[in-house]
């Protein structure tokens, strides 16, 4: 059976060039970058070269990039780092209802510690209202954190505009760009962001490495205290091979970006059009234009998402419902619910997130096998009673 992977927002394969770049750092150059002898010197330089490559992806300076172990760590570092560093100035944080659990759980934790959190609503397209954002700001607001692109729907938020609002009011602005990186251009010089999160394994790099852009002058309380690594901002011996892989993945992402955007949006449109043509009662979730090129979040009315995924899996197709972090949970997607989508439709959603290696043939195969699967599941559904297919 052919394996088809439509779950690139959960994680991406490590591409060969990336793996090859990492190998020497397991086999020969395994020294500690902090060591001053022969075993360490080469690794230090390699880590700094990789940093430059990741910086190019964001257009920032090497001093502004902190390597971490994941997008989640970067999000924690940014939010707790500002909360603790600025707690004398205020205790109010603004975010949205549709953030990744890395943000939401961190905010929930801070709420227990006495911080006030405003969770902005989203409309049916998944977007926030900038007037509501402005209205939510109080003299105690120290941080705004709004994601760049939603992981479930691909919806893109107006980062530059939000940053402008934050900047005018002297509020720190963080954005979780884990899903945006490598899929659309990011230029921190043009955006008004102070902090920005990315993750290696979403851009064809390895798992276990992430980064936090922290604009020059932004003071953060460290999350992980320890040695002098990352200029005293993040202790712990560096994940050297991981960082090298991340650097290589960033280099490739920059190189291929335009090509990828064209390729992915072509495939994604073909997928959506094909399914909508072949199956009734199908809804695409999220703003039709303000979206990542690779993400299709589709509700199949009257049937439940996980059972669709199992059927797809039996055909070799990997997709997901909601974020990988929450699949295996029984809650309907908090993102779709926040968008006002009914519980049944929220439970009936499937996320197809496309990537580099996907082909027209794969899309067409999906469009071919999906209708009978949906039909069979609907025939078993007590909710489908009144409808005919």
């Amino acid at each position, binding site marked *: 059976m052919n394996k088809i992977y439509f779950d690139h927002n959960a994680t991406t394969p490590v591409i060969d060039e990336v793996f090859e770049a990492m190998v020497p750092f397991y086999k020969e150059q395994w020294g500690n970058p902090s060591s001053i002898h022969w075993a360490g010197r080469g690794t230090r330089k390699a880590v700094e070269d990789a940093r430059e490559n990741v910086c190019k992806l964001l257009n920032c300076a090497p001093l502004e990039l902190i390597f971490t172990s994941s997008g989640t760590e970067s999000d924690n570092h940014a939010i707790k780092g500002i909360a603790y560093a600025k707690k004398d100035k205020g205790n109010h944080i603004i975010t949205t209802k549709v953030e990744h659990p890395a943000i939401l759980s961190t905010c929930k934790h801070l709420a227990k510690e006495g911080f006030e959190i405003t969770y902005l609503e989203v409309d049916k397209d998944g977007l926030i209202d900038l007037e509501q954002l402005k209205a939510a700001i109080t003299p105690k607001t120290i941080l705004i954190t709004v994601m760049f692109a939603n992981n479930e729907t691909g919806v893109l938020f107006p980062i530059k505009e939000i940053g402008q609002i934050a900047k005018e009011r002297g509020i720190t602005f963080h954005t979780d760009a884990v899903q945006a990186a490598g899929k659309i251009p990011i230029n921190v010089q043009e955006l008004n962001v102070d902090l920005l999160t990315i993750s290696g394994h979403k851009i064809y790099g390895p798992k276990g490495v992430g980064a936090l852009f922290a604009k020059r002058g932004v003071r953060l309380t460290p999350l992980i205290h320890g040695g002098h690594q990352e200029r005293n901002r993040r202790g712990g011996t560096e994940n050297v091979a991981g960082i090298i892989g991340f650097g290589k993945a960033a280099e490739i992402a920059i190189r291929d970006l335009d090509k990828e955007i064209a390729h992915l949006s072509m495939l994604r449109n073909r997928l959506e059009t094909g399914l909508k043509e072949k199956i009734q009662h199908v809804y695409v979730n999220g703003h039709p234009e303000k979206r990542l090129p690779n993400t299709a979040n589709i509700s199949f009315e009257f049937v439940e998402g996980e059972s669709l995924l199992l059927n797809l899996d039996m055909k070799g197709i990997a997709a997901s419902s909601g974020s990988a972090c929450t699949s295996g949970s029984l809650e*309907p997607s908090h993102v779709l619910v926040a968008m006002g989508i009914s519980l049944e439709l929220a439970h009936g959603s499937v996320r197809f997130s496309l990537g580099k290696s996907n082909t027209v043939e794969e899309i067409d195969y999906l469009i071919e096998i999906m209708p009978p699967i949906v039909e069979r599941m609907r025939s*078993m559904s007590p909710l489908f009673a009144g409808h005919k297919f």
Partner: protein
Amino acid sequence: MYSEKVMDHFSNPRNVGEIEEASGTGMVGNPACGDIMKLTIKIENNVITDVKFKTFGCGAAIATSSMVTELVKGKGLDDAEKISNNTVAEALDGLPPVKMHCSNLAADALHAAIEDYRKKLETK
């Protein structure tokens, strides 16, 4: 994640459908947790002679629905009432922990159908 038995019942569910003029109907679950089960039973001389289900839900929900129909077909009402959600889960060689609460409602649907049948009897 799922046992082979679960996957078997999920891919080849037994007794899908709805009995017209059923002796009893049980509907449990709610959209919030993503699982809704409808069980219809035919009862003759206190024996369940036919049973069918329709389910909106995840793999576990469908497999437990299918399994419960197999377990009760031909059983007397007293025996059928002894079947619990746990009985069903065990018959499927277990379910993932996260699924034990919410998606394991098929026995509840059965009990609801039997109760419905008893109520109808009383009001006759």
